Each structure stands twice: as C-alpha cells, then as structure tokens.
C-alpha cells in the first residue's frame, strides 16, 4: 500500500485532519500526565507503615487532669486487659495515620538551630509497645527494661532510641547510626537501633522524602504518656474487641471523655487518611476513560463522514481491481498517519503540561517511558475506532462507480 496517495487525499481535508490530530495530541498530553498522577498517588497510598495494621487499634480518652495520669493509666491498662480476646494493651502517644502527637525538629548539635536534621515524629511507647506494634529491627538492639524512663519534658532525658531506616539514611548517610547522638533543643538522644519501617502520623504533610522520619522512644507511662492506648488483638476479633473496649471506658473511668475520632482500628485510620487520594485517583481514572471515549467517538464520527463522502471513489477503486482488504487498509493507514502526527505533537504537549504541573504542584518530571505507552494506547484506540467505518467502506460494492450518487 502506498502512502503517497493517502497523503495527497489528506491534503484535501486539511481542517478535519488537523482537528483529529489535535484531539489526539491533547488526549496524549492529558493521558500521560493523568496516568503519572495516578501512579504518584498510588505510591503514596501504598506506604508501608511498618506496623501490624490489621491487628492494631488505638483508643484515646481525654478530659483528665495531668495529675491523675498515672492513676488513669493503671486503671485503663488493668481494665482493658480483662476484655476477652485482647492480646495486649500498652501506652503509645501516636499511631500511623492517627492524630499527630509529637513532631519536633532535631539537630546534630545541642540547643542550636544550626546543623539541623529535620522535623521528625517522636513515637513514645511504654513497655510492650514495641512488640505490640510488630516493628522489625534491622540493626542494633531492642529496648530493655531499664531503657524505659519517665518523660520529664515531652520525652525522657538522655533516652536510648530506635530510629527508622529512612531517618538513619538521611541523618547519617553512609555511616552506621548506632551510638550516634542527636538533640531536640537541649534534650539529648542516642540511637540504639534501627527499625525497617515506621511511618509518621501524617506521612503526607512532610513531603515524599520524610514520610518515615520517626524516632521510637521507650518511655514509662505517666506524664505526657497517658490517655492513648494501643490495643492488639487477632485481626478477625479486632472490631469486636475495640467495640467492647470503647464501651468499657465508661465503667473503667467514668470521669474521662472517649475521643471517638481517635479510637479506631489502624486499618480504618489508614482508609480515612487516604480517602481524598483515593477519590483523586478515581477521578483521574474517570477522566482518562471518558477522554479516550470522547476521542474515539470523534474519530468514528469523522471517519464515517469521509467514508460516506468517498463512496464513489471507493466504488471506482473497487471496479478497477482493488480488493476489500485494500480499501480497509487504506482507511487504517490513513488513521495511523493522522494519529502519528497527533502523537508527535502530543509528546511535546505532554512535556509542556508536565513542566507546568512541576512548577505549581511539586510533581517530579514525567518519566520518558510514559510516552511510548501513551503512543501505543492512542494508536490502538485509533485503529479500534476506525475499524467500523473502514469495514463499512470495504463493503461498498463496485457498482456504486457506475451510478450517479
């Protein structure tokens, strides 16, 4: 099949050709960037919190005087532990995707704001919390009984802590973090171990680099570590256990207020936390599908028009020996050429759009491999859309040539 006559024919339909090519170009630009956005969000949602989410729940009460903290903790721990199916009840200040309790800036030097490392989440945990969370130690040692000390300020002084691998890599790149010191204002900390993953309470809020900048600080209950409890139970049992625990609070401590919003399973907290991202993904997918649909409809509409317009020419070609396959291929190749033109323009547009998004929405650069995927999709779409009209064209009988209209 020769391309020359096809090009010559297209030149006579410049406006329509241009319109389809433009539609393809726009679709290509939006498709590549929308897919990229979907993948970005998807990665965000897939974040590894490092804890056994399905087995954990958090229960928060407030409205008590700090002086009653120790008494309240004792009552709550004994009371909640009697609930059937409860595997453990321990103290914690925050869980991933819950309310943020302790974010603070840390630095390599005491008391100064120079040589800073960044703002990290301090996860304070009482005895047993480390085991209940199900964290994975990759280096160093686990907290021992005497590592748990009372918090005088917001954290215990000179605490031995565990840091996440992400924080260790950021603060001491290429070095072993074990035994390293850091400060939060005048408060001193020393690293005793590294955990594989531990997400902060609001991983979104701190940029993609810092989603796991966390410090696990062993702390004795009391003072600032009170009122928030980590419950662990069998995943199948957890909703019932949490429900019973929420009911039990009224009996164990009638004077405090149960914080409904912050008394949920960690899986539910995660779902709520990522709700708007999920909506955004669905929205983007919806836009992609309708956009491709609309583009395909445009191609079908215009191709049908051309077929109708060229019935006589098709008839003549058939009468002088062209097979049905020839006619079919003619329209397929024509579509391929127009779509290719659109894709070339679309790639430039896609990068332009990406640059714009990068400026306004802190998005990374569009990886090059999105372009061939987008191109293949649009070629496929074009061929699919033109198939119907092309088959109709191929069905035009040679006798049409001899009729006047």
């Amino acid at each position, binding site marked *: 099949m020769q391309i020359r006559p096809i090009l010559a024919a297209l030149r006579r339909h410049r*406006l*329509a050709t241009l*319109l*389809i090519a*433009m*539609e393809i170009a*726009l*679709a290509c630009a*939006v498709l590549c960037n*929308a897919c990229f*956005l979907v993948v970005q969000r998807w990665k965000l949602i897939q974040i590894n919190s490092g804890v056994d989410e399905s087995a954990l729940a958090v229960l928060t009460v407030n*409205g008590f005087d700090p002086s009653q903290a120790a008494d309240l903790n004792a009552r709550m721990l004994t009371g909640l532990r009697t609930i059937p199916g409860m595997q453990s009840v321990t103290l914690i200040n925050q869980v991933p995707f819950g309310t943020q309790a302790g974010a603070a*800036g840390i630095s390599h030097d005491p008391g100064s704001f120079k040589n800073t490392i960044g*703002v990290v989440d301090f996860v304070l945990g009482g005895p047993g919390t480390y085991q209940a969370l199900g964290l994975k130690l990759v280096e160093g040692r686990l907290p021992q009984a005497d590592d748990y000390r009372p918090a005088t300020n917001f954290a215990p002084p000179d605490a031995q802590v565990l840091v996440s691998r992400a924080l260790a890599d950021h603060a001491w790149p290429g070095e072993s973090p074990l035994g390293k010191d850091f400060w939060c204002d005048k408060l001193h900390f020393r690293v005793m171990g590294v955990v594989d993953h531990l997400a902060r309470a609001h991983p979104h*809020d*701190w940029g993609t680099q810092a989603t796991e900048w966390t410090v696990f600080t062993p702390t004795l209950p009391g003072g600032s570590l009170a009122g928030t409890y980590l419950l662990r139970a069998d995943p199948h049992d957890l909703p019932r256990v949490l429900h019973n625990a929420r009911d039990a609070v009224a009996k164990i401590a009638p004077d405090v*207020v149960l914080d409904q919003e912050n008394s949920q399973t960690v899986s539910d907290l995660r779902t*709520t936390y990522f*709700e*708007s991202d999920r*909506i*955004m993904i669905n*929205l*983007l997918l919806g*836009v992609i599908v*309708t*956009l491709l649909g*609309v*583009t395909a*409809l*445009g191609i079908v*509409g*215009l191709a*049908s*028009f051309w077929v*109708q*317009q060229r019935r006589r020419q098709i008839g003549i070609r058939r009468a002088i020996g062209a097979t049905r396959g020839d006619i079919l291929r003619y329209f397929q190749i024509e579509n391929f050429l127009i779509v290719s033109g659109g894709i070339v323009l679309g790639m430039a547009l896609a990068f332009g759009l990406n640059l714009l*998004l990068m400026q*306004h*929405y802190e998005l990374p650069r569009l990886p090059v491999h999105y372009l061939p995927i987008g191109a293949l999709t649009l070629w496929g779409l074009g061929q699919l859309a033109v198939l119907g009209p092309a088959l109709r064209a191929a069905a035009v009988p040679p006798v049409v040539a001899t009729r006047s*209209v």
Partner: protein
Amino acid sequence: MFAYYMELALRSLKRNPVLTALMVLAIGLGIGASMTMITVLHVMTNDPLPERSAHLYTPHLDPLPLDYTHGGNGPDPADNLTWPDAMSLLRAHRGVRQAAMAGGTLLALPVQSGLQALYAAGRYTTADFFALFGVPFEYGAGWSAEDDAAGAHVVVLSDELARKLFGRADVVGRTARLGELDYRVVGVVSRWDPAPQFYADSTGSQFSDIDTFFLPLSVAVNEDLPVSGNESGWSDDEKAGSSKRGAAMSWLQFWVQLDTPAQVADYRRYLVNYSAQQKALGRFQRPPTEAALFGLMDWLAHRNLVPNDVHLQLWLALGFLFVCMVNIVALLLAKFLRRSGEISVRRALGARRRDIFVQLGVESALIGVAGGTLGLAIAQLGLWSVRHRPDDYARIAQMDPSMLAGTFVLAVLASVLAGLLPAWRACRVAPALQLKAS
C-alpha cells in the same frame, strides 16, 4: 427567520440522532465536569459576610526579630498578633468597632443528667465582636466592655450548644459549665456560620468549624484556657515567649470596622506609626512599613484557602471541556459539510453567506442548550459526590442561581464557539460546483 432556522436545526438534528446524541453527550460531560469544579472553587472563594465584608479589615504587624527564619510548612507567626499589640490596638479605638479573638475548645458538661460530656469549639473575644460581625441574637445580648475589663465569667452560647446542654434555647441567666469553670449565660445566638470562617486562625478547618460559645478574652487569659489555634513564640524567655500575655508570642486575631476610605487611610498610618514607635522602643526590629491592613476578601486571597488538589481538578475539568469542544468542532464540521448540497440549493435560491452562517449557528446553539441541560444534571451529580468527600469544604459545595445560569451560558457559548469554524467553512461552499457535482 429565527423560528425557521430553529425548525431547520431541529429537523437536521433529528435526521442524525446518533451524531446529535454524541455531541450533546460530549458537551454535557465537559460542561458538567467544569461546572462542578468551578462551583467548588466559587463557594470556596465566596464572600462569607456579603453585607459587611467591604468594611471589615484585619491589621497585621511584624513583631518577629530580624534573624527569625520561617521554617517550612508551618503557619507564619506574623499572621497573628501578640497580646500587648492586640490590647494596644483595642485601647486606641481607631476603628468604628474592633475586636480581638482566638479560638478555643472546652469540655462542656450537660446540665441534664445522663448525657455525655462533649467538646465544644468556641471563641474567646472582646465585647464588640457581636456588633462588628452582626451576629444575630436569639435571646439576651453580648457582654459589655466593663465585663471584658473585669474578666467577668459570662458566656454567649450558640442555639445548638444551648440545646445540647440545657435541652432548650432560652437559657439567659442560667449557669453553664465549660472546662473547669462556671459561666453565667448572657445571650444565645442563632445559627451563624460564615464559610470560610475568615476570622479564625489559619490552622483550623476553615469551612467546617462553627463557633458554639463565646467567652470574654480576658477570662481566657486570666484562667489560661486552652487555645486551639497556632501559638508561636520566638523568645527563649519563658514569660515573653510562651505565656498568653507574653510580648513574643502571637496567637490573637484582630478585626476592625472602617466605614470610609479616609478611615482606612488613617488606620494604615496609625499602624505604621505604632510599629515605628515599637521599633523605637526596641520591641520591633523590622521596618514599620511591614505593618499591613487587609480587607476581608484580600485577606482570604492572601491566605489562599483553596487546596492544590482543587486547582488541579479544575484544570483537569477545563482541559476535558476543551477536548470535548475540539471533538464537537470535528463532528459539526462533518455534519455541516455533509449538507453541502442542501446549503448550495439555499445559496442558489438567494440566501446570503451570512444567512447560512446564522442558520448553522442556531443549530450549534441548540446543541449547546441540550448539552447545558445534560451538563447541569451531571454537575449536580458531581457536586453530590463532592459533598460526600471527607474534605473540609465538602459541606458547602452547592450551586446557587448564578452558577445555574452560568452553566447554561458556558454551554451555549462553548457550543457556539465550537460551531464557528465549521459554519464558516460550510458557508464558503461554492454552490455551482456542488450543484454540478450532484
């Protein structure tokens, strides 16, 4: 003539129902998606107090030291005022009315037995607040400047909270327990929820928070009640940098009513003079010209309450509308050119190019009206789904009459615009050539 064109357009659209349906669907989808997002943006940038916003201003000073650098994501401490500055502005009484305020959440205990204690969000403020913003009272009234000065334990409740605590709304004179203290109820206000809550600190939920009680600010300071907004200190000195009365901790919002341009200019001068005076005293370090006075809408624009995601979704929707329009241009072109024969006959019978152009324009506009109707339905569906989002602004996503009309205008405009090029191309068809060919 118009009626005739309408008839022609209807007949032409009926002749090819599939193609017509496709075009209506395309414009409906594009308009629906765009109008959903335009409405969301519209309600988010809405004027929360249309009758008063033109006269409401918020003064801003910059008490931060020169070497203070604002780190990353957090709110700017200079957005709020310190206690000494707010009290100076209040005492100077340069505006028609003025009030200082801060948000707070307190545990409220119902008087009726058997009800759970609940957390209530409210505002600590000064006497002028209610008159300044025009808060409607159902029972009683606000407190006086004397109550402010004396730190009187009085409270104004919202109708909603009064019903939750007492089971009824006319509770003036009764005692409400909030936090650790008892307050005498002096007034009950009916539902008042400007969205966005422009006068609140930037860290709150601007579109979903409603104040349920109002307490004198002096009580909050005397009793050191918890503040729910951002409290930023910039001094190592415990007393100045982290106590409510401290000169190096900002936590208060301030609003003032200024009725004439002269008053506004005076107030601006006063702020600069005040800053210069504080600089001379050594309290401020930055140039006095940093002092600013924002009008209500300017302040909202400055705060930029619209999240990035909403902007992104708006651009997506508009981009989608554009693709739909290009699509309609192509389809209309096919449709109009297919009728070259008919157009040639009309031209040969004496119709001018202009007549053909208008006739085809009417046909595109008709598609626009149909598309607008469909788009309206789709936009309502879209807004319904927005209202079910977990976002702060979900509650207020509703279409008002102006948006409703806007939908139709946009739809007709888009389709007429899309029809221009094909109509121009079609009315240039050479009649003789066409007639001969057929």
